[in-house]
């Protein structure tokens, strides 16, 4: 296997640097490509130039300096399209994809089950129910203004998972089977609540449904800014847990024998994954299959150890999401498909192929 090399002492070690560097490069290309495609086509060179000017402009504004010498009108249009419209959306898509794939990788590791996904513990149903309630109530909550639905979704997702954890815990331990069962049961209750809201509030039903299916149409640099720190914290937590997650694959008992604090590990990964999931859902709605398929595919391609799986899943999740959103906003332009529909349409068949190959092996 080409992924293995021999360490100083001669024991097999897999590389991380090269696949991560190549994957990140591929992600950068996808981002530049996606930012260039739309009603107006913009070449990669122009996208890059506009991005550099956009960053320069933001830095100048942040430092209180005057804007740099104005460029010609045509270029200003391109700058606006790239920097104000397309890039926030592409970057937000990348962050959402990275967050969901991170959470999926963590949940699959902690539940030792490749079929686990970020919504297993009810985060999606909790976010959906809370968002639906706020939309029925008029869409704004006091000072939160335009961020009300996002805030409600974030709180709904987080509270749901905390309730599931509280229900499933036995003293200071968090047994996995009751945890999953509690997640499924509470998730079903909240999904039923959302269905009821949809039926009761017919006028808002279309808006709620659009949100539930996931969309990145409301992207802005503000939303990127609110998502980024949450995703970074979750990613740091997941990376810190990576080695212990590897050991956990030996079983909870064997991991304990090797000095791993299994209960703390499980709780930490569930919280980090929930943070990432809640953050992603709050800005983009419920987007399925990314958190399930991406970590799974990365595991097949690069092997199961989490020190590689976690960062690579984040990068690939970002790239997958950018491409899915590109499809969502271009295939029936000027109308848009819900991006959750695209990820499901692409993800489901891909996942079936994986399953078939797995059972054949």
């Amino acid at each position: 296997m080409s992924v293995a090399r021999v360490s100083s002492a001669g024991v097999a070690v897999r590389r991380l640097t090269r696949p991560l560097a190549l994957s990140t490069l591929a992600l950068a290309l996808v981002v530049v490509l996606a930012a260039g495609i739309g009603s107006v086509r913009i070449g990669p060179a122009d996208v890059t130039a506009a991005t550099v000017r956009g960053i320069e402009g933001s830095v100048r504004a942040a430092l209180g300096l005057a804007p740099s010498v104005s460029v010609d009108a045509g270029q200003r249009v391109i700058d606006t399209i790239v920097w104000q419209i397309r890039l926030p959306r592409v970057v937000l898509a990348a962050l959402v994809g990275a967050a969901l794939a991170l959470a999926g990788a963590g949940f699959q590791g902690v539940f030792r089950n490749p079929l686990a996904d970020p919504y297993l513990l009810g985060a999606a149903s909790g976010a959906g129910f809370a968002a639906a309630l706020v939309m029925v109530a008029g869409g704004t909550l006091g000072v939160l203004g335009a961020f009300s639905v996002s805030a409600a979704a974030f709180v709904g997702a987080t509270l749901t998972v905390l309730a599931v954890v509280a229900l499933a815990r036995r003293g200071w331990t968090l047994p996995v089977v009751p945890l999953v069962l509690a997640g499924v049961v509470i998730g079903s209750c909240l999904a039923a609540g959302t269905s009821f809201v949809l039926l009761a509030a017919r006028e808002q039903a279309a808006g709620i449904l659009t949100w539930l299916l996931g969309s990145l149409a409301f992207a802005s640099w503000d939303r990127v800014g609110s998502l980024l720190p949450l995703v970074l914290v979750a990613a740091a937590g997941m990376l810190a847990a990576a080695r212990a997650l590897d050991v956990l694959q030996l079983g909870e008992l064997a991991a304990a024998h090797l000095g791993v604090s299994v209960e703390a590990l499980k709780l930490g990964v569930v919280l980090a994954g929930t943070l990432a999931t809640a953050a992603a859902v709050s800005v983009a709605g419920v987007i399925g299959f990314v958190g399930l398929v991406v970590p799974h595919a990365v595991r097949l391609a690069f092997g199961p150890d989490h020190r590689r799986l976690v960062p690579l899943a984040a990068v690939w999740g970002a790239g997958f999401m950018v491409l899915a959103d590109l499809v969502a906003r271009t295939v029936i332009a000027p109308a848009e498909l819900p991006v959750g529909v695209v990820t499901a349409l692409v993800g489901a068949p891909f996942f079936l192929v994986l399953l078939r190959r797995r059972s054949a092996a």
Partner: protein
Amino acid sequence: MTDVVGSSVAAGRGPTGALMAADAPDVLRLEGVHAGYGARSVLHGVDLALRAGEVLGVIGPNGAGKSTLVHVISKVLAVQSGSVWVDGAPLASLGRRALARRLAVMPQAATLPEGFLVGEVVRMGRTPFVRAWRGPSAEDEAEVERAMRQTGVWGLAERPVEHLSGGERQRVVLARALAQRPRVLVLDEPTSHLDLRYQAELLRAARQAAADGVGVLLVIHDLNLAARACDRMLLLTDGRVVAAGTVRQVLVRSRLERAYRTEVDVFDSPRGPTVVPRV
């Protein structure tokens, strides 16, 4: 009965014929241990002393408390009363990592996660030594290599674990335990499902670990393998130690018939007694 368990006992003679030092330090010691699950008590006052350099067999019928004993020693299950010392330190004072640097467990029916390479699995044995955000040190790598060579899996380092035979898997799991460089090695039914050659291979590796100064606690159903691998034995029945001492002191027909509630024949030979149930 406890008088023959303690380290005060006179030197016994191991199956290798070597005279064991009676004054070797206890690396594992239990005194009056009661333990169980919830209201149900399984162990009722177990005393045990394991010296560095010996293989101590724990035998007994199903449900006697052997697994519970392993759980207590590995701090997966708390004692209800009584005391446990590992390498001189009270078990209660040792954190998980600190315990894992002193005591390794080769679990019964270990799972090896699909997709991992043999070298990666053995390196997991260094988990209690590796610091967060740091890679394994040169010492870690050296211990991994030593453990893999000792168990004969060095050549398998880059093989995915799902491509191993049953005997190879058990040796990989043993290598992982040895990579912890433990003072106490607990082997929980290490030979089940192995054929004769691999049984012998595994128990030779256990004896080698003892020769290197590790205290080996061998929990095992097969009395005849136990008779050949152990220096001393402990017969557990209904959560109590009903016999302890040398192999010939414990594998006595009347004791075994009482413990296992079935008739047995015990044949003695120069290599140790052989126990066969009457059917």
